[in-house]
């Protein structure tokens, strides 16, 4: 195949791109949360932040779990939500199957943000209550309470 | 019988202005023009059916067909035919062939009205027609209020034929009024109305006053349907004839 010339040019361009003030970390395209319209918060070495919804052939990123629940009506099919947890690379996986939500046993949720600029930090999932307590210790938040999935859904629905 | 209303509207062809319900041309459906020519390089075709009713005679049916061409900016020329059929004598008439020239002198600028003039020449091709008919019309258009417009038409008509008991030169004045209907949610219909005074060709009569009302309805991107009704309402000498004229027409630009 006559790919080498094309590839050489590509190589050079990638180099140029890398040099133009761009971040060196491959990350999702600059995008806003489909619900709150604020910029998505990227994962860090210490903490995952990207909430990913898998529906049909789409994989859509949200800023927080609250935004996902609020925006869920746009999707008719079953959802799988990869919600960042206290542990990097180990999301809490929520499912909406036939319209009914489910979460892994023991999972608890935080939902205390007042403004959406704080939603990524304060609307999250945890694998267990101990992890929740540990997170709150490091990130104090007024009125923080470990919610079950049903409580979390009810709380989001209230707002 | 000489047809009073035809004096005003019949012998000389109306022109087709830009085919848009807002742009008004004589005969479609009333007798007045606005002060705008059709667009440069526009061609327009217009046809319309007319029915003239009379108290003391049978109705007359007419079919006007006209072609216009915008040959320069603000100027157009046209040719028109108006064959007719009279039920009283059961005869058809090819009618006169009418040539027209329109010149838009200026658009409305600030408080100054738009001005135009047109010249029409009727060639004596119809049954019993004599001489060449010429009409000169001065036109003024001015917006009143937000969207409504008044259109003042001043006519002088003359004929090369000298006929006993007929005036060789007559005058006329028409005040037209247009009002778009449905603004600001609908944009396809215009109400047209007029008051007109025409000097009769017949020396035994004087000025004839008439009123008219009509609608221009856009039916396609470049076509307009129109419907109008006119009636003589008074004469300065003698009784009003109370003739009623119906017109329904279709115009298309291309």
């Amino acid at each position, binding site marked *: *195949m006559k790919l080498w010339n094309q590839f050489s040019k590509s190589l050079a*361009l990638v180099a140029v791109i890398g040099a133009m003030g761009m971040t060196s970390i491959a990350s999702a395209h600059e995008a806003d949360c489909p619900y709150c319209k604020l910029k998505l918060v990227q994962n860090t070495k210490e903490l995952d932040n990207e909430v990913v919804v898998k529906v049909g052939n789409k994989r859509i990123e949200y800023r927080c779990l609250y935004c996902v629940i609020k925006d869920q009506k746009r999707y008719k099919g079953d959802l799988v939500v990869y919600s960042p947890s206290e542990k990097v690379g180990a999301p809490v996986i929520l499912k909406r199957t036939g319209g009914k939500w489910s979460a892994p046993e023991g999972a608890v949720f935080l939902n205390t943000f007042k403004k959406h600029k704080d939603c990524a930090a304060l609307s999250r999932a945890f694998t267990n209550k101990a992890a929740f307590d540990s997170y709150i210790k490091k990130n104090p938040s007024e009125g923080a309470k470990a919610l079950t999935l049903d409580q979390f859904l009810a709380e989001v629905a209230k707002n | 019988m000489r047809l009073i209303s035809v004096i005003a509207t019949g012998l000389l062809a109306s022109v087709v202005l830009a085919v848009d319900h807002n742009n008004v041309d004589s005969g479609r459906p009333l007798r007045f023009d606005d002060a705008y020519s059709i667009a440069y390089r526009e061609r327009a075709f217009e046809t319309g059916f007319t029915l003239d009713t009379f108290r003391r005679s049978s109705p007359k049916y007419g079919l006007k067909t006209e072609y216009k061409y915008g040959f320069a900016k603000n100027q157009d020329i046209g040719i028109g035919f108006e064959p007719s059929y009279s039920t009283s004598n059961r005869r058809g008439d090819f009618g006169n062939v009418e040539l027209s020239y329109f010149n838009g002198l200026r658009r*409305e600028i600030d408080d100054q009205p738009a001005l135009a003039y047109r010249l029409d020449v009727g060639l004596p091709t119809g049954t019993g027609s004599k001489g060449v008919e010429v009409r000169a019309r001065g036109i003024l258009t001015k917006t009143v209020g*937000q969207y409504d417009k008044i259109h003042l038409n001043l006519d002088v008509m003359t004929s090369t034929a000298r006929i006993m008991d007929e005036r060789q030169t007559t005058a006329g004045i028409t005040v037209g009024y247009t009002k778009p209907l449905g603004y600001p949610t609908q944009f396809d219909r215009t109400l047209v109305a007029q008051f007109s005074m025409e000097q009769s060709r017949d020396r035994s009569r004087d000025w004839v006053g008439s009123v008219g009302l009509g609608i221009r309805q856009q039916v396609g991107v470049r076509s307009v349907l129109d419907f109008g009704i006119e009636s003589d309402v008074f004469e300065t000498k003698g009784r009003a004839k109370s003739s009623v004229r119906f017109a329904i027409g279709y115009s298309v630009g291309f």
Partner: protein
Amino acid sequence: MRNTLLLFVALTSVTMAVAQDHGGHQPTRSGTLPTMPSDLPRWISSPGADHLFYKAAPYNWAIERIPPFAQDMYGTGVGHAMAYEALVTGRKAQLETKVFETIDRVLQKPPRIPVDEAALSPTFVRKYGYLEKVFDWAHILHFQTIDVLTHPGWSDAQKEAEIERLWSFYSAQPYAITGLPMNMEYLDSFPFSGRFRSNYPKVNGLFWGYHWLQTVNYDMLFRVPVQDQAAQYSVLGSQYRTTELYRMRDFMPMTAEMSPRFSKRFPMIANAFDNLHMLHDNVNDILAAEELTEKQRQEQVKIAIYRVLSSTHKGHEPGSGEDVPGSLHDHRHPTSTPGMGFMKGMEDDVMYMSGMGWMDMSVCAHCSIPLPDGPMWGATVTADGWTMLVRCLMCARDMAAETPGRAIIRAATEDPSRILVLISDEEGILTSNIPGVVFLEEFGEHPECSAWSRAFTSKSAFDQFVRENPDLAQSKPLSLDAWAQINRGTPDTYRKIDRPNPYRPEPTTGGSR
């Protein structure tokens, strides 16, 4: 190979970082009003109405083949006319309320026939009739180019030749707007600039919303078979009415942003539309500037017209103006995009795009690998209001999959006359305009993706391609369903350009819940 790449990136980074310090000229907002040029064309003072008819042709009004699109386009004639009339009749205070509601109502329930803008803004036209001539003539070009593209029965070559003729027809009139790229930052740098969008953001949003429609449609139509055009408008029309009309943008949508393929083929037309839309913005700003007297407004509108007229730029060439950056005759354009003038903060091909952030237009929007040369290439993705060029179908699919909402993918096949149009629903389920479409996706290095990720109109075309490329001998044809379910995520070659928004440096903090 990846190590080689990273090393090369690292080595060149230093050089390029230095280059960035020498940014382009940045025109700042001038404090003094532009003065009347000595060579203002005489027609501006002509009292005639000077109406011009469109070029007589069999394709006229072919736009009506897509009724919702035609009607939305007809509705666009209403907005500016109503706003201008309000501005010149002392109803500025109602612009964001009553006038907005009226325009919005019309745009949501558009007329079924074109609207005579002059009839809607009689006061404005009496004052600024010369401006109406420029607008009308350019709007005719807008409509006729669309008509050509929606006309059935002509080949792409015939259509493109006719669009060239339309451009000549348009350019022959003195009201023609230049097809040269102009520096948008310069055109937006006058004392009154930005006034309208600041004072009347909702109405301005509607204006830019329908400028979006007027520009996004060209790639919907360009080289797309007429039978595949209407389906796309179900996506775009919905996006227009629900989102784009109400989007708060940083700058007006640019034609090359919204329809990159068409703009690449007809840069002069893309530039003319952008210059036209900028003239609209200039006029909005002039009319909104309270400090200007009526005489100054008249003068400034005439000067604004002069700036963009074709006659003003006679003898100048696209790409020229490096010696006069940020001025009237700055006709530079991004290297990859001749159909766009320089934008605020732009450096060659890198520009800030509303909704996308900083983008390099010379590379694939998904994998950041350069786009091949030539007017046609891999694919475009239209989603969430933007249209992006990508190198291959894999990039198109994965980019559409990570974007909320419906999407349109347009891609080349082995048959130049058959563009693949894939429409994605809200959940990424794709439908195709080519029933037997077959995909090749033999995943390898991204810089080569346009070679191993392709679409074919039939299995036999796929087989032939594989035969001609022995290193793909093991490849299996993929059906649409099978192919659509693949997702390879964000490529590791993707590089995001991380710079602040030049139009709105302060980050937004968002509202409450």
